[in-house]
């Protein structure tokens, strides 16, 4: 890729994009490659949306490598403000310089007759301290100021607040940043901007309008297999093909979190490390937690795996423990009750748990309000000791003794 050594070259065709990304280990399909080709030609930002783990961030990295550009990354998070994205004044450095230059400043104002005059003189010099020397660039400004061309990756932009989105819009519209004390920075070569989003909230229409948009979904079976191969997981080809089929089957189960490409690769690596020679339901069940991360999902997946591996398999009835018999004699015709897997028929344990529930003050002093749903927060207040004879008279003022009103 000699043309890209300077980072400013252009792709000649969509095929060339596929090859260039392929060299970096990123398998792109035609739609994706076309979009990247357009980014390269039109200098428009690219917004990629899609589920987690389908290679959105990877694309930016591969693009940077393929075009020989430096990668700048802005990771968005909730509550981020523009100082973390654009620039900050390096306050510590400013303070350090004023300390070092104290004598020089003293000389400047030494012969000023009045305080007002001294302030005016220092005011005349203040541009020294608000210059590029004291400017701490953050990724956005860095991308604009950079002499060499860059790829700017704005990761998980949906996590950022709308205020930051507005700052991004301004920057991406003009590729320039205004710093009031210094002036306006404009870019020499526009950066390739890649924004990724997991759709945790809707992005503003204005942002979408300015970007080329690409929805990156789970790949086709062939492409996924190609990706697994390219990652050199060490899993034999035939098994990898079967595994991709199983993962695709899991994605159709309506899990809370479907397995993505990166999880497929992890699973392939796991199986390779274990030296698996044939895929059967047992070995997959033992390793399924690599790809499925929620308790309920795991149970669903384990139930479905035998069918996914071998559609003609008969599933053996697994007798997993359920709650306790209630001794009211309808256990036989009852369906298995859902209960925690870690429940056991431990009489003694149950007695201890139950006995602990007669402890006074176990709800502490926080009556109700507990936003985190954890324990009650405050330590239980110690109830005062009351002697038994005092206790008797505490009720009804002595139970009907005539009392003076």
């Amino acid at each position, binding site marked *: 890729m000699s043309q890209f050594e300077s980072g400013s070259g252009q792709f000649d065709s969509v095929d060339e994009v596929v090859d260039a990304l392929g060299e970096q280990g990123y398998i792109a399909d035609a739609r994706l490659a076309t979009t990247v080709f357009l980014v390269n030609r039109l200098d428009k930002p690219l917004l990629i949306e899609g589920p987690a783990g389908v290679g959105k961030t990877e694309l930016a990295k591969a693009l940077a490598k393929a075009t020989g550009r430096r990668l700048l990354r802005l990771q968005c998070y909730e509550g981020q403000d523009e100082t973390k994205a654009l620039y900050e004044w390096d306050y510590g450095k400013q303070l350090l310089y004023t300390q070092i230059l104290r004598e020089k400043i003293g000389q400047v104002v030494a012969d000023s007759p009045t305080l007002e005059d001294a302030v005016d003189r220092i005011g005349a010099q203040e541009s020294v301290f608000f210059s590029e020397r004291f400017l701490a660039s953050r990724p956005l400004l860095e991308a604009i100021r950079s002499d060499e061309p860059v790829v700017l990756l704005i990761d998980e932009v949906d996590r950022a607040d709308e205020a930051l989105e507005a700052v991004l819009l301004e920057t991406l519209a003009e590729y320039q940043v205004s710093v009031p004390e210094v002036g306006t920075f404009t870019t020499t070569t526009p950066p390739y901007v890649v924004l990724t989003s997991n759709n945790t909230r809707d992005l503003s229409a204005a942002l979408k309008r300015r970007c080329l948009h690409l929805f990156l979904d789970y790949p086709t079976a062939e492409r996924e297999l190609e990706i697994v191969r390219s990652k050199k997981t060490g899993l034999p080809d035939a098994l990898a093909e079967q595994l991709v089929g199983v993962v695709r089957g899991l994605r159709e189960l309506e899990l809370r979190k479907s397995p993505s490409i990166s999880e497929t690769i992890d699973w392939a690596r796991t199986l390779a490390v274990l030296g698996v020679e044939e895929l059967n339901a047992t070995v997959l069940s033992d390793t399924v937690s690599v790809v499925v991360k929620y*308790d*309920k999902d795991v149970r669903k997946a384990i139930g479905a795996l035998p069918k996914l591996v071998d559609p003609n398999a008969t599933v053996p009835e697994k007798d997993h423990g359920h*709650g*306790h018999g*209630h*001794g*009211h004699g309808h256990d036989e015709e*009852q*369906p*298995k*009750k*859902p*209960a*925690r897997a870690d*429940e056991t028929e431990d*009489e003694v344990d*149950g*007695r201890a*748990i*139950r*006995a602990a*529930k*007669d*402890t*006074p*003050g*176990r*709800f*502490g*002093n*926080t*009556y*109700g*309000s*507990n*936003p985190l*749903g954890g324990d*009650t927060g405050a330590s239980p*207040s110690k*109830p*005062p*000791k*009351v*002697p*038994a004879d*005092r*206790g*008797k008279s*505490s*009720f*009804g*003022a002595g*139970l*009907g003794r*005539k*009392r003076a*009103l």
Partner: protein
Amino acid sequence: MQVEEMLPQFPIKEFHPFPRALMGPGAHELIGPEALKLGFKKTLVMTSGLRGSDIVHKIVESMKYHGLEVVVYDKVESNPKDYNVMDAVGMYQQNNCDSFVSIGGGSSHDACKGARVSVAHDGRNVNEFEGFNKSENPKNPPHIAVSTTAGTGSETSWAYVITDTTTDPKNPHKYVAFDDASVTTLAIDDPVLYYSCPVDYTAQCGFDVLAHASEPYVSRINFDPSLGNALHAIKLTNRNLREAVWNPQGYEGRFGMMNAQYIAAQAFNSGGLGIIHSISHAISAFYDTHHGLNNAIALPRVWAFNMPTHYKRFADIAEAMDIDTHGMTNVQAAEAALAASIRLLRDVGIPERFVDVKQDSYSKNRLGQGPTEFYKGEGIIKGDAADVDRITNHVLGDACTPGNPKECTFETVRPVVDHCMNGDLDDLLT
């Protein structure tokens, strides 16, 4: 004495919002359209069966008429047990339901709320959610609660009460879970459904209302937003309960009690409870008796127990009970309120102490024919010293106890429990 001990005990109160409610004659006929509006497709109806009335049948048919698929779980027991809840959760998951409807009194609503919370946590055991806001997933399936008794208020509150019979089968535990996630999506209160409620249930549920209304008025965590509700519910109960019990086909009493129970539930939702409920839960845990009956028997004793801390508040209650308190001191007025509550209890014909509760004293008494091994063969409420001790211990560990205005220790509470068991109500009258 540390500075932090000088701070008020519950510095930040919490006001709990209520679900939407449809109230008035004919409201239950709106369940079909409302369920469709909420996006129900396949609904699990939870109920105790309400055998002898056609309420469940009518509502289920109406839902089917509107195009909903309905699965019915009608085995909820009085004082719902944890296995009722887990059976319903199993049924919900097997049938791939997406919503809940509960028809009945507190048992049906509470079991349903527990089942919802359990469903939202992949079928974890409901007993794990005892306490305050223990659920981690706020998104649980939608739930319409249709009330057929005037007492529970569960259709509008954030509390549900379940009896744990499995952790230690020989020592059942009735616990309260307060959970904002358990609040229903829509409450339907229709006085038309109350007409077939039996006389004794009506009376006992009425005292549940009186307990719901009077406890938050004097509790440690009461605060102004809930006080007005409490007083008004006391007023409505005092005016309408006798009518609802003794003229069960009269609209006035039924409608008044419907409003009273709803308002009372809103009062305790934010104002907290006290040991009327703690004692009531303990008795239900060991004897499976009706919650309202327990409240009725415990109420005068607990009022007398708490009175010295809040004479003025009890004087307000006296006014709400239509007592002319002109020229009375607060103490006299408070005594008058206690006398009025005992009079109300006698007027509607409720047993005066627990040892008087016999198998035939109300329609569905489970004494001696309870669902689990534990309840078999009890048959009578013992009320001996060992019994009082275990009930007192249960009271001290109850989630309602911290809200009681008077400090609760074993020594102070035991005489109250003992008196509920064996004492004579006339002792309390001066």
